[in-house]
């Protein structure tokens, strides 16, 4: 799916882990994605859907021995064909990542300043003094008060929200083109969450970086994303612009996710739950992977549906799309 000016273009990505017991788990199975500069793509899915594995594959951070095929095009190169050294040069420079747990993602042995400076010194030929100045500038950019004082503090002296800001400062220190945020707000309480999302939105405007936001929280998606890819059992089941997805979900799984989302703006009885659980990915299921939990299943679902285009450029992996027909 070639899009004009895509910064990152993933084609048919497959990731398989070979367990020590000889079992193979297909964590990601044929994913196509692309992001353009200045846009935010949300990847939504429950635990084990392959969303984090996809992002780690892009960063080249999957453990050795993992089988990865397909193509990850980044700035015209295929990252899967690049050497480990080349990937190290890209990480933290052209592409960066923010992790879920700000409480444990900073090294307790070094000051905040040391850790941000390290990323700068790694990728820019500058001296300690310049790195320090740049690090303080980054701390200011992520709205950490009194950046000069914070520079020499240790992680345990900062709150969770402040640490996540420091992590963002570290990730953005070398002006990456691509920022992957893996559940950046999950570990934070709601007010801090809103501040961090606001910060990310503002930084995207300033830097024009492409952002991939991985989350299981549709509320976060609605807040910051332009586009959404919904993942289920290692596959993308639906891709759409964010308003379209919330207005008319075109995959039964998305419908289920939206039903399970608590809302304040509408009367709602009990939250809907999606019954059943995610299929075991070490035994690759045949047919549509959602069918055992799907209220709309038909005989044809024994056969794997492809990602089918439905109205205005949206894609869904469901034989029964568009779903409006079913409820009308």
């Amino acid at each position, binding site marked *: 799916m070639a899009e004009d000016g895509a910064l990152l273009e993933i084609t048919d990505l497959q990731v398989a882990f070979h367990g020590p017991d000889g079992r193979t788990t297909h964590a990601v199975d044929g994913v196509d994605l692309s992001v353009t500069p200045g846009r935010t793509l949300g990847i939504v899915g429950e635990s084990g859907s392959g969303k984090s594995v996809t992002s780690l594959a892009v960063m080249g951070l999957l453990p050795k021995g993992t089988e990865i095929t397909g193509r990850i095009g980044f700035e015209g190169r295929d990252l899967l064909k690049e050497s480990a050294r080349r990937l190290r040069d890209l990480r933290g420079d052209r592409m960066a990542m923010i992790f879920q747990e700000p409480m444990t*993602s900073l*090294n307790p042995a070094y000051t905040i300043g040391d850790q941000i400076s390290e990323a700068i010194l790694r990728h820019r030929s500058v001296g300690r003094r310049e790195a320090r100045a740049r690090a303080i500038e980054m701390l200011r950019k992520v709205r950490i*008060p009194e950046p000069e004082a914070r520079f020499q503090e240790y992680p345990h002296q900062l709150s969770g929200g402040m640490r996540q800001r420091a992590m963002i400062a570290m990730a953005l220190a070398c002006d990456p083109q691509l920022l992957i945020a893996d559940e950046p707000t999950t570990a934070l309480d709601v007010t801090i969450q809103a501040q961090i999302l606001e910060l990310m939105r503002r930084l995207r405007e300033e830097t024009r970086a492409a952002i991939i936001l991985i989350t299981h929280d549709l509320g976060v998606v609605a807040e910051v994303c332009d586009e959404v890819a919904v993942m289920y059992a290692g596959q993308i089941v639906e891709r759409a612009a964010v308003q379209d997805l919330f207005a008319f979900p075109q995959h039964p799984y998305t419908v289920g996710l939206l039903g399970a989302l608590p809302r304040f703006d509408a009367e709602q009885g009990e939250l809907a739950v999606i019954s059943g659980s995610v299929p075991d990915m070490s035994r690759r299921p045949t047919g549509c992977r959602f069918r055992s939990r799907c209220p709309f299943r038909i005989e044809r679902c024994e056969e794997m549906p492809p990602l089918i285009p439905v109205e205005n450029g949206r894609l869904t992996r469901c034989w029964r799309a568009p779903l409006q027909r079913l409820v009308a």
Partner: protein
Amino acid sequence: MSAATEPATVSGAGSHDHLVDSPRRRVWRRLKARPAALVALCVVVVIVLAALLAPLLAPYDPTQQSWTAVRQAPSWQHWFGTDEVGRDVFSRVLYGARASLAAGVVSIVIAVIFGVPLGLLAGYVGGWVDAALSRLTDAMLAIPFLILAIALAAFLGPNLTNAMIAIGISATPIFIRLTRGQVLTVKAEDYVEAARAVGNPGWRIALRHILPNVLPPLLVQVTLTIAAAVIAEASLSFLGLGQQPPMPSWGSMLNSAQRFLSNAPWMAIYPGMAIFLTVLSFNVLGDGLRDALDPRAK
């Protein structure tokens, strides 16, 4: 979201005092709060000073024999009495501290220099490197520490240097295993993944991001192993495998004292007390350090 545009409302950072509370300072503060550990630290300092300043503090030459002052009881002239050839026991205990502490320190340096990098390698690289190193440490740890040290010292030949090497080699597997275990824990930490995500090469992650975080338990082990090494040196010297006569060592002093236990007990009591105090102090200090370094403690 007005909060993000008003820095004053988001200053939720942990502390507002700008005293930098570095991990090192925090440990020192916690250690100071433990009287037993503090006393032990003082005793260790006194023993180290005694060993360093032995030539200035000792009233007599520790090897000077005197046939007119054989096995004299403690007196103002000879504080700890004299031994079977008239040597001053106080001076010999002071000089003996040199052999004991040298054995403690040198053997631990050997054990750390070999054990920590090998443990780091095993834990970080994993695979067959880990398997090979782990089997080797298992094999060495199957033999009791002292027995292994005695066997190695006997093999290398009886003198203090060889005794230190033997003790050092015997203590190495303890450090390999401890380091490896700690590295395995720290390797899975999020900040190690974060360090990879900013493009650090493997060696830098191992040395800069993992090593500093495995040091605290290693420091505790160092203190405890010094105590074990002091005992090992005394044992080897007692058996004649360590410090050679006429130079004093607490172990060899005990050896010669055993024949006179009933009529000259001071010959055994003072070197015995010295060993006891040194080992106790290092152990108490080690325990105190462990508590002070415990991240769960307040």
